[in-house]
């Protein structure tokens, strides 16, 4: 770059000669240079401003064009109802083991009002209370004439109700589509299914979420679109569940019990074929959780898995089976059951203060001798007893696949003393749920394997770890059969099905310690058919009491056993079990040969 000097010598000299101020030349040069610089920068800026202006013009044109393109495309149908389709996703059905529907979805409507659009709020309120008697007229009028612009009236209404609301003819009464969970069988298997409610809720749709039972346990699976609407198949059998509920309900009423529960379980697969807890509820209209009173008396309470009870003498068979398994005794070994017997200063008595004298191990079970079982337990010792019961899953909540099962935590003593060993041997001091008991009996019935109860249909046996020898299990099965043929459960004889089982009558504990005199939990734990057991049935009645032969009777033999027998008689044919006709029934038929 050629720089012109600010003070060119030739011009300075010339100026000096003329007597002018040479500084003016320098100033003039500076001014010119400044002007040139500005001109240059202005020209450059002109070009760049033009670019900038062009850029902005293009950008705005592009935005305008894009707007035009968007505005001239029609709103696509799924996008138009976008808010709806996003949450009203199909929830998978729940079916029983044969694919019969237990829970499905149903298109229904919600009813809401937009008061500003209402023509005659009074008439609308009048019409509405005729259709929905539970609504309050004053409240409706207040809502319709107040400042609110949007009022929910009913979350779900039937098509008939919808038509009736239509007929009121008020433009301010509007309907939103609702996908509703429907349990077509009503109360059937209510505790297993639980129920569903609305989660996120909009005018055009609401999200259905499981609130209890299997609906909540498998909420993620049921809502997962990746499953393609494949239903969730349970192990339950709809017909057997229905029969069980009918029989148990009748039995509960007949025995004046305030609650009842039953569990029917396949001993090899652990599948629960039916599980009932009474009183029950309608999952279509699930009641609100109780805010007062004893939660365990509420219909929502699942006695089969949540209720932990001292299940009494039904535990004796575990003691006997373990004693046989350990080789301490065989079923014929004689045990002294005479009193008095004290453990740690605590007297061990018998039912109605009986004294059985010397009994064989099998007869201890048949007669249900507390002292006899206690003596066996003392031979086994606390450590081995605790380990055995632990292997039967008696110390943890059952893995049964409904959310409530996690709440069924068994209660057992922290310090396992000799006294605990003795009382637990006959079912006191350890509280567990009927589901626990079913799993324990299944281990005896299937030849000595633990099975975990499951609600999902299984294709093959799910035998867990071995907990006793097949011989001990078989001996225990024989003892159970003998209880029915000649013991406390004689009412359990169901012709052709060879039921075996053990009764248990436990005094109910008072909330503040001690036991009630006249309130019991009566349980019958049964296996059938006892020569090749396939199913376990537990029936438990809460506070049963009947008058028989002029006497008030509460023991399981008089209460739970007849109910269980009726149930077996009803469900065994449904299970496809063949009755074995015993030769005695052939009496009267003359066999002839020629």
């Amino acid at each position, binding site marked *: 770059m050629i720089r012109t000097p600010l003070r060119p010598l030739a011009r300075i000299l010339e100026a000096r000669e003329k007597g002018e101020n040479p500084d003016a030349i320098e100033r003039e040069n500076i001014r010119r*240079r400044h002007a040139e610089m500005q001109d240059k*920068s202005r020209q450059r800026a002109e070009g760049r401003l*033009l670019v*900038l202006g062009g850029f*902005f*013009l293009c950008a705005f044109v592009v935005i305008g064009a*894009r*707007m035009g393109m*968007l505005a001239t495309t029609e709103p696509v149908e799924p996008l138009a109802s976008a808010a709806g*389709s996003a949450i009203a996703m199909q929830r998978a059905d729940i079916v029983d083991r044969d694919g019969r529907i237990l829970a499905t979805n149903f298109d229904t409507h919600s009813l809401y009002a937009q008061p500003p659009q209402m023509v005659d709020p009074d008439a609308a309120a009048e019409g509405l209370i005729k259709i929905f008697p539970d609504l309050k007229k004053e409240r409706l009028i207040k809502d319709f004439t107040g400042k609110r612009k949007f009022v929910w009236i009913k979350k779900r209404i039937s098509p008939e109700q919808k038509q009736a609301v239509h007929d009121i003819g008020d433009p301010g009464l509007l309907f939103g589509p609702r996908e509703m969970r429907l349990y077509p069988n009503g109360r059937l298997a209510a505790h297993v299914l639980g129920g569903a409610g609305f989660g996120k809720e909009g005018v055009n749709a609401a999200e259905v979420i499981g609130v209890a039972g299997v609906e909540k346990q498998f909420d993620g699976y049921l809502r997962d679109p990746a499953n393609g609407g494949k239903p969730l198949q349970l192990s339950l059998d709809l017909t057997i569940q229905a029969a069980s509920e009918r029989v148990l309900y009748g039995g509960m009423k007949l025995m004046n019990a305030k609650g009842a529960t039953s569990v029917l379980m396949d001993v090899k697969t652990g599948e629960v074929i039916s599980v009932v807890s009474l009183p029950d509820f309608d999952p279509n209209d699930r009641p609100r959780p109780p805010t007062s009173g004893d939660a365990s008396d509420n219909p929502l309470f699942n006695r089969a898995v949540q209720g932990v009870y001292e299940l009494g003498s039904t535990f004796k068979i575990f003691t006997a089976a373990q004693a046989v398994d350990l080789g301490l005794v065989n079923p014929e070994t004689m045990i002294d059951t005479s009193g008095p017997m004290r453990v740690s200063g605590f007297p061990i008595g018998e039912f109605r203060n009986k004294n059985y004298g010397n009994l064989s191990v099998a007869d201890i079970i048949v007669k249900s001798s507390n002292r006899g079982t206690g003596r066996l337990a003392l031979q086994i010792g606390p450590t081995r007893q605790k380990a055995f019961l632990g292997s039967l899953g008696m110390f943890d909540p059952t893995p049964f696949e409904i959310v409530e099962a996690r709440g069924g935590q068994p209660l057992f003593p922290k310090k396992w003393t000799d006294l605990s060993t003795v009382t637990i041997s006959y079912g006191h001091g350890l509280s567990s749920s009927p589901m626990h008991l079913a799993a324990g009996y299944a281990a005896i019935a299937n030849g000595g394997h633990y099975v975990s109860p499951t609600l999902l249909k299984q294709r093959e046996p799910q035998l867990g770890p071995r907990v006793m020898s097949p011989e001990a299990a078989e001996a225990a099965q024989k003892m159970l059969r003998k209880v029915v043929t000649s013991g406390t459960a004689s009412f359990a004889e169901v012709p052709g099905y060879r039921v075996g089982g053990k009764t248990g009558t436990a005094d109910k504990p008072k909330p503040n310690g001690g036991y009630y005199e006249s309130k019991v939990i009566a349980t019958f734990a049964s296996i059938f058919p006892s020569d090749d057991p396939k199913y376990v049935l537990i029936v438990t009645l809460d506070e049963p009491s009947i008058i028989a032969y002029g006497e008030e009777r509460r023991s399981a033999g008089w209460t739970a056993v007849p109910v269980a027998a009726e149930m077996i008689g009803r469900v065994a044919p449904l299970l496809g079990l063949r009755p074995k006709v015993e030769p005695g029934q052939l009496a009267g038929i003359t066999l002839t040969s020629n």
Partner: protein
Amino acid sequence: MTEMVYGAVQQRAGEPILPKWWRTLDKWSMTCVLILFAIGLLLGLAASVPLAERNGFGNFHYVMRQAVFGGAALVAMLLTSMMSPTLVRRLAVMGFIVTFVALALLPVFGTDFGKGAVRWYSLGFASLQPSEFLKPGFVVVAAWLIAASQEINGPPGKLWSFGLCITVVLMLVMQPDFGQACLVLFGWGVMYFVAGAPMILLVGMAGAVVVGGMVAYSSSEHFARRIDGYLNPEVDPTTQLGYATNAIREGGLFGVGVGEGQVKWSLPDAHTDFIIAVAAEEYGLVLVLVVISLYALIVVRSLFRLMRERDPFIRLAGTGLAAMFGVQAMINMGVAVRLLPAKGMTLPFVSYGGSSLIAGGIALGMLLAFTRARPQGGIADYLRGRG
């Protein structure tokens, strides 16, 4: 010639202020601004009703507030546009210092209104966002510094202004307010570009932006999700963008009708970031194109007027203000039509918001002051043959 008579009527030198203002003003731009403001009120009638309902006010609570703030903004704009560039510069520099301090003190005295970013001062009846007021002040200061550097023996103003720009950007990022930070950076970049940035540097910066974007994409999950959402041709209908797109489609050419729109009930930011979607739904493409043309007209007209400007400071400051105004509108509308990734930015003079309205009024007043017609020494140039 001059009458020097005792007691004569005093005459002021020069032209009276108002006639001169009216003669030299860019009347087209000012008309556009007034129309924009009117459209803002009209859309506020539709878009702010759900907000008022949610907050338990009367239906048109926010429209009234918008009208009051807008009136103040218009007054501020008119007053500013009557000032001389020197006066504007002086006031703006002082204003910049005040807002800069206010911005610095935000972490101490500011509130976040539960939105996770400390950007506001709560004044009881209203809230104040200093960064909105900082932007025009910053543009003027930066333009002044850059212009000074173009004088003989001037200070290194480009470097100084760059340092200032980075400081402001960092303060905004710390709030965090990436939108305003981007605007400030963009405003400075445009001024630097017009002031004669070397071409090599421009290319290098473009490369740096690309690299920086890629780094941000791979390191920040939040950022990556936004970009993915932008690149994905399928719009998730439950997002704000999905609602906005659908609203534009519903609106079609002439809209669904006044007050019939649905999108304002679904979008939490219908009265600010997505007001153009409300406009598109209720009034259709027609109004949207009018709004776009108004912005384009203001920006492009201002830039073309500034091309003739001889004073480097006025040229730069005007360019910065016009560019910031234009790019803010561009980003807002570009997001609504999915040309740009989602970024919360208000539509100047149309969106609801007290601070942004008044600050926008001041900024536009400055722009109008800078684009006023003034003698550019053109004849002298011709006489000297420099054209």
